[in-house]
């Protein structure tokens, strides 16, 4: 069965490491749905978060292969973990006379921020999990979406859950 996976990969913060990681996916014809990379608290390391969909066996193989890369320090699949997930979207929508208030109302409900305004458009910024972003896009669709950009998901394991695991 195909499941959506969020995999976090702790790597050495060095040139070329990203292409080693990405090469494992592309070499197997696997699509990466989203990818985010940035340095961690320890600046010699970076954390990548990749979301992808695939069957269990192939993903298992990819995780093993990732672990095999010399520059990969740790791989965590969040599939069966309790975690916090966030993604940010910048979305530009049409602002016509009849829809202006509707746009502002929707963005208020979602606690999005208006980050840019022009006579013909609004640009809104929203953070949330994938479902929230999806709902936001769907509601704005009738208004007329001009464009959007998403950052890709980032994840972090919930502390309570992590504690419980180390205790037991």
């Amino acid at each position, binding site marked *: 069965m195909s499941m959506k996976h969020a995999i976090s990969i702790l*790597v*050495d913060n060095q*040139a*070329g490491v990203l*292409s*080693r990681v990405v*090469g494992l996916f592309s*070499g197997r014809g696997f699509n990466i749905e989203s990818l985010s990379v940035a340095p961690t608290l320890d600046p010699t390391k970076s954390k990548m978060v990749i979301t992808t969909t695939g069957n269990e*066996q192939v993903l*298992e*193989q990819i995780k*093993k*292969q990732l*672990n*095999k*890369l*010399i*520059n*990969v*320090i740790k791989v965590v699949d969040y599939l069966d973990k309790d975690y916090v997930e966030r993604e940010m979207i910048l979305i530009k929508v049409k602002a016509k006379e009849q829809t202006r208030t509707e746009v502002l109302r929707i963005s208020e409900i979602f606690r999005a921020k208006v980050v840019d305004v022009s006579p013909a458009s609004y640009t809104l910024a929203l953070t949330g999990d994938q479902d929230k972003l999806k709902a936001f896009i769907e509601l704005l669709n009738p208004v007329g979406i001009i464009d959007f950009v998403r950052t890709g998901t980032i994840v972090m394991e919930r502390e309570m859950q992590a504690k419980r695991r180390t205790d037991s």
Partner: protein
Amino acid sequence: MKKITGAYAFIEALRCEGVKHVFGYPGGAVLDIFDAIMDAPDIQFILSRHEQGAVHAADGYARASGRVGVALVTSGPGATNTVTGIATACMDSIPIVVFSGQVSTNLIGNDAFQEADTVGITRPCTKHNYLVKDCEELPMVIKEAFYIASTGRPGPVLVDIPKDVMRGLISFKYPDKVCLEGYCPTYKGHLGQIKRILGTILKSRHPVIYAGGGVVLSNASAELSALARQLHIPVTTTLMGLGAFPADDPLWLGMLGMHGTYAANMAVTEADCLVAIGARFDDRVTGKIDEFAPRARIIHIDIDPTSISKNVQVDLPVVGDCKGVLTDMLEELRDKQHDVNELHHGVQPWLDLLEQWKRDHPLRYEQGTGLKPQYVIEKINELTPDDAIISTEVGQNQMWTAQFYRFKAPRLFLTSGGLGTMGYGFPAAIGAQVAFPERTVIDIAGDGSIQMNIQELATVVQYNLPVKVMIINNGFLGMVRQWQSLFYKGRYSHTSMAVSPDFVKLAEAYGARGLRVENTADVEDAIRQALAIKGPVFVDFRVEPEEDVYPMVPAGAPINNMLLV
């Protein structure tokens, strides 16, 4: 401390790694290192005639000796010419380190003369690779390169060194250890799991050991033989595993897979317990994967977790070094004599059945009027000393060697298994001969393959390396022709090698010796004569052009579905 250039630091680092031989080819971007090599008489440099040859030679050196093979080439075309050699080593997990020159760091990315993105090109076919950007990093990078190449599941590592790094000055100090947070191979197998697999083996009635190249790489042949003999378990190996278990042992079943023996393929199909050791369930071994070892509990011992349950779902995996795990298994067996006796009793009918299969379906070939390639291999087997090193090219020559040459010890058989690289055998034999100047080294070649690295004739002549090349000359790209004959209605599309050089004259033109054999009656004499000559020899055996390799499992069929002679 006195400062030295990166080039001299490179030489010092090789010394610290105990490197005695380097295979390679010069060029603009590596001039500084080549200049420094002139001052290092303790490191012998062997000049190949093509960078692919240098890398295969380093690979053959590593396979035969167990030491890391080293190659040194220039930037751009020098580096791209190494790719096939590196990929060959990668597929067979061979420890080599390839050093390539690179344009100066300030020119990288400018499409400079002889610039190539060598690290990018070799990324998917190395275990790891480096671009050294700063002279100060060079000693640590070299240390890590040798460490990564030779530990865990071994493999090729490439180090790309820009020209200005070779010319920069550093105070040389070779690090005594590496610190790689993301790399810590598991050597020791889990003891509880080892106990469980022994429990399963001891309760089995149709056990088979299926050993691969991992046993050779971890130097675990003695432990493998001890385990098989102690438990009375028959053994088959992959192509890469040949020699890991002696071919004259009564428990030996022969190689398994596409051109495996009847007994080996049937044994695996009927097994109730399959013990895979340092093997990776390659498709040439398993045939139709769903019908591979259908009745068996599958045990898999391997140092590389990615090999486990990759192609076949494994029941009992153990991640660890073959030698260590086998040693632990032998240790665990010490107080289990009672169970071992039971097992001996229980497996006897199975061993009897296997004996009968071996008797009823031995490897065989039809006698004919022409010269039979299998006969040539049998004679080479008969006339060479037990420690002779045999390399092969790819195709029928390779499969007949695997079938008819009886390897009695590991590291005697050098062949490109995973990548199947034509042109591998001759330079690999050169590497082996450099490692062991006194031993008999033979490349069993095909008339097609030998032409892929034939330029290395100049190398064997230059260094007077007495490599013998036995060309199984069938006038065809024989293995491809065999597939065309069996599966493409005999339409021989571009597989004729009717136009080939006169190999005898060609050898002579390079300053080597050449012999030709056309009749069965002359085979023995010619082999004796070639072995007696102190220098390199080509022997051109004109064999039956359309002889096929049997048994053969058609691609995608289950392995008990063999075409026999």
